[in-house]
């Protein structure tokens, strides 16, 4: 159907513009695509609702509860105390499902996610927000490093296709195929146990008091270095391969030839023309990968006993601490959604063509 499709939309363009100067200059740029934004917003709200609802029912569908689990570990709790505990945790099941569901929303609106049995009956919000910064900090930094190194490297490798730089691709791809837990354990074995360069695990030394002082920050960096390095090594290949492939596509575009015919220096063609276009899909996947920072760190946190969200989820699952699990799931869901929104916005900024895509 080539040649047929565009004609409706192009009505009144070429023929009329002949010999005239433009009448509306920046028209396309100032317009805000409200309808498009509205539709996206509605989509995200629906997704959020669905995720939260599923989260609610998930807990109801699970066998056993935290209190029974708690009782099996602590034998000297009386049945009355156990009932009181159930009431406290909102596990008394004389309410209908709908009532529970509505209560759940009300509590959620108040920022109340319940209390965690595993963590000495502290509110879930508090427990989660204590773990969140560690995960976001560590995995976030690692993701940014990996993205930056992989994208720049991929651009250069793509630009010099057929040269020796091509060898980087199979190497990084190989590294990313190694199971992460194995890579992590290997890193600990070599650099922590044998060489003793890095501590074996945890976010900072035992007995250290968190605070904004040089010693503590130094500790955090020292402890974080190995996990960050392993994450970068494991994920670099994807970024590099993606960017290189995109570069190869873009380098075949006419505007690259034009830029070269214009006498642009190679560096300028590489970064200003080729990489500038090739990076667009990369940025989108980067924004999306931010969403998986929170949820995707379980293995790393297990291997390095890092006190983040992943470890929290793992412990909560083992202890059947459903309130905590729900809280963690909620945080993961929201972060994935936020990342998606971010990806949309970033893309609209970088690619002028999507800005007027009101359709």
């Amino acid at each position: 159907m080539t040649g047929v499709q565009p004609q409706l939309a192009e009505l009144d363009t070429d023929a009329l513009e002949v010999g005239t100067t433009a009448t509306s200059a920046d028209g396309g740029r100032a317009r805000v695509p409200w309808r498009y934004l509205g539709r996206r917003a509605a989509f995200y709200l629906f997704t959020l609702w669905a995720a939260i609802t599923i989260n609610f029912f998930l807990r109801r569908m699970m066998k056993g509860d935290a209190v029974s689990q708690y009782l099996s570990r602590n034998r000297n709790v009386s049945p009355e105390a156990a009932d009181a505990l159930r009431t406290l945790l909102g596990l008394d099941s004389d309410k209908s499902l709908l009532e529970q569901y509505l209560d759940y929303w009300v509590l959620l609106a108040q920022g109340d996610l319940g209390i965690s049995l595993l963590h000495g009956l502290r509110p879930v919000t508090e427990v989660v927000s204590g773990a969140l910064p560690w995960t976001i900090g560590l995995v976030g930094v690692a993701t940014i490093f990996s993205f930056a190194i992989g994208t720049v490297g991929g651009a250069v490798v793509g630009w010099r296709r057929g040269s020796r730089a091509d060898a980087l691709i199979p190497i990084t791809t190989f590294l990313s195929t190694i199971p992460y837990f194995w890579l992590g354990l290997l890193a600990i074995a070599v650099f922590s146990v044998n060489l003793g360069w890095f501590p074996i695990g945890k976010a900072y030394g035992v007995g250290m008091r968190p605070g904004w002082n040089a010693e503590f920050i130094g500790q955090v960096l020292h402890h974080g270095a190995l996990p960050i390095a392993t994450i970068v090594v494991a994920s670099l290949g994807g970024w590099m391969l993606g960017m290189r492939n995109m570069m190869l596509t873009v380098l075949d575009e006419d505007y690259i030839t034009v830029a070269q015919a214009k006498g642009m220096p190679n560096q300028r063609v590489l970064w200003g023309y080729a990489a500038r276009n090739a990076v667009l899909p990369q940025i989108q996947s980067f924004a999306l990968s931010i969403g998986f920072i929170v949820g995707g760190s379980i293995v790393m946190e297990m291997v390095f006993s890092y006190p983040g969200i992943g470890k929290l989820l793992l412990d909560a699952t083992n202890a059947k601490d459903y309130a905590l699990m729900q809280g963690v799931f909620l945080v993961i869901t929201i972060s994935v959604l936020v990342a998606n929104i971010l990806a949309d916005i970033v893309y609209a900024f970088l690619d002028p063509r999507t800005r007027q895509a009101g359709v």
Partner: protein
Amino acid sequence: MSEPLLSIHDFSVTYDVDPPVHAVKGVTLELARGEILGLAGESGCGKTTLAYGVQRLLKAPAVITNGSVMFHDASGEDVDINALGAEEMRRFRWDKISMVFQGAMNSLNPVAQIGSQLEDVFEVHRPEMTPRQRRSEVADLLELVRVGAQRARSFPHELSGGMRQRVMIAMALALRPQLMVMDEPTTALDVLVQREIIRQISQLRHEFGFSVIFITHDLPLLLEITDRIAIMREGEIVEVGRAEQIWTDPQDAYTRTLLSSFPRLTGERGVVVR
């Protein structure tokens, strides 16, 4: 004939694949200063490869296997294009010979404003210009091709095909080159827009006096707008002649085939057997 501007001698390009493809075979061609030369042929005849080869824009696996390209600069200096170093070549491009490409849709970087793409040319080739001078020069250029200075901040997708091709012509004109190579510059455009752009090129040529190599498969168009026409087939130039001579007295059989492939708009009927 008047003084020469570009002398191509025994120029050959081979695509180094298996088996090798000899895309351009020993082409010798001379272009006079101020002349419009048409290069006609069907797809795959090597006309685009020849044009890219002259500017040394070919990418692997294409290899220039033989020949020389001499550019006779207005200053009186003769430049052997094949002997230029990479940096000299870069500076030579666009300054002396600029190009207008076929894909008006894809010739512009989709994520950059057209003004900045025009300014690029000055930034690289005229580093002594201030940003202000650059902007005003770009505005002048856009006015010159009747796109309008206010379009400098538009993105390529906001312009129609005809407008984009005008922008490309403005870009090609930026450094006042002595030669413009145009590769199917109007093929993707409607006939009215095509005519308008041809008219504009012609006007600009009268004003600035550059030579043109006009590459297309559209022989009737070439017959109307060029001084001389070179007919290319399978990498070789089979015939060169003044447009009128090609029309009235074609020497080569292939030229005659090409001529008879185009139904005449107002001439005798009978080309399509009905």
